[in-house]
């Protein structure tokens, strides 16, 4: 899932500024599951902004709505009127949600209420960890299902640096050394010899380094008459 964290209230207030009619839009997918931007968080944020604006002596009209998925226009269109009536939208979606609103409603000013942090999973109650860097050329088949791009602090491809100690990364004792995990897993599966192969420099053109990415699936594209119907 996409994991995000709410921005500090002060920062959101700063972004909202003097706007009179404020709409907080939550998202019912990833950010709901990571307790950052779902219906509940949208309600709490709206109420915090209302109270805070009253305390600051310029009460704002703050309402909230949550859609199933902010990252698809078809879910945003039904609340289009609410969005267009607002002076400002605070999106509690990930960065994709914020941009989906900006793109679909060019007249409306939208600001982010979250910091989109990473692609990861909950590893225990209240803890989320990064797992994927979306590099566009998956290497997990070479590393026993543990990603060194996302999980090694230096994204090394040929084994651990000298900073691996007792399973931890030298940058932080709370961070696992990805290469220790890879080593242990390949060892337990009898596949250590896979680590002996020299991995060549990675082709980063499939990642963000190659510029903004787009996938076009012609087999799924609608023919022109279908799109205009």
């Amino acid at each position: 899932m996409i994991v995000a964290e709410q921005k500090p209230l002060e920062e959101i207030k700063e972004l909202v500024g003097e706007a009179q009619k404020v709409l907080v839009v939550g998202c019912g997918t990833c950010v709901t599951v990571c307790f950052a931007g779902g219906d509940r968080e949208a309600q709490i944020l709206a109420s915090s902004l209302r109270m805070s604006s009253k305390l600051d002596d310029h009460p704002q009209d703050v309402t909230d709505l949550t859609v199933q998925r902010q990252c698809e226009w078809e879910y945003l269109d039904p609340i289009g009127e609410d969005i267009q009536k607002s002076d400002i939208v605070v999106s509690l979606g990930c960065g994709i949600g914020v941009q989906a609103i900006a793109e679909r409603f060019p007249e409306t000013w939208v600001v982010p209420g979250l910091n989109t942090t990473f692609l990861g999973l909950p590893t225990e109650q209240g803890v989320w960890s990064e797992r994927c860097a979306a590099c566009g050329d998956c290497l997990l088949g070479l590393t026993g299902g543990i990603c060194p791009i996302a999980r090694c602090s230096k994204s090394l491809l040929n084994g651990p640096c000298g900073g691996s100690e007792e399973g931890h990364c030298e940058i932080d004792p709370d961070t696992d050394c990805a290469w220790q995990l890879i080593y242990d897993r390949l060892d337990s599966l009898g596949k250590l010899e896979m680590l002996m192969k020299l991995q060549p420099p990675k082709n980063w053109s499939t990642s963000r380094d190659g510029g903004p990415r787009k996938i076009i699936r012609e087999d799924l594209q609608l023919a022109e008459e279908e799109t205009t119907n």
Partner: protein
Amino acid sequence: MTEEAQKTLVGSNLEHVLQNGTFAVTGELGPPQSADGNVIREKLNLLKSYVDAVNITDNQTAIVRMSSIGAGTILVEEGMEPVIQMTCRDRNRLAIQSDLLGAYALGMRNVLCLSGDHQDFGNHPTAKNVFDIDSIQMVKMVADMRDKGLFQCGDEFKGQKPCFLIGAAAAPFADPIKFRPYRLGKKVNAGADFIQTQLVYDIEAFEEYMDKVRELGLHEQTSILAGVGPLKSPGMARYMKKNVPGILVPDKIIDRMSEAGKPWSDIKKEDRTKEDKKARSQAWRKEGIQICVDLIKELQKIEGVAGVHIMAIEWEEAVKPIVEGAGLHPRPEMKTPVL
């Protein structure tokens, strides 16, 4: 000309020393956090004629310093041989290759390929890192430039190739410890001509590592220089043991350091004068140098150890007594590369 013969044409002093089978001594010099070239010249005078080549660190511990190649140019001018340290943290494959072309043109002939300390440790922790390639891929890239005349992308060189003696680092005691000799093997297979290890204080643990290295035959394919460094105090020894990954400091070494300062440590803290503290610090440093000398003598006995790499950063004065104490002075006459 065979590929093997081509590999010996780097022409550096370090290569010459290693090929002659002389027990090599390299030193280390940390450039200043300023643009003052005289700092390099002063430090250099403390190392000259005591080491065969001098590593110039590359923004070590991720703190901005004068560039390795910039400082290396001063060494070349002064008739000393640099080992350019090059990290993957600050440069992508374009910048590494380009910098090495420049370094070669300026007379540098040795490079040490490193992944580099994470920027989180240094004075610009909010920086973006690069890590386009890793240290092993860098070794291979530099070897391919020299041996195959190819840029990393596969394009052929049209003019002079950069021919470097290629070094890599090894951390014999870092985790997963069983993988360490094999990781060394990967570096050797990628083309590392010489290896400089992390600081060795635990001879027994290093002997075990070298047993495995010899079993894999790696000592015959590369020159292994064991890392050594003088301790300044028992506190420094304890700090390294506890906080620096991949460094083992046996208690007997910490005890030797403590013992050396005992006459002054025994004085009650409130009665200890400035002079006492100074005398204790001197006694510690003297013992630190002696421990280093003793370690080198032990390392010389280990089959497959081709030399030592003395890391006395910010204490370059220690190199002379260490090299003399270990009976490694005078050094072979400096052979300067033909430019």
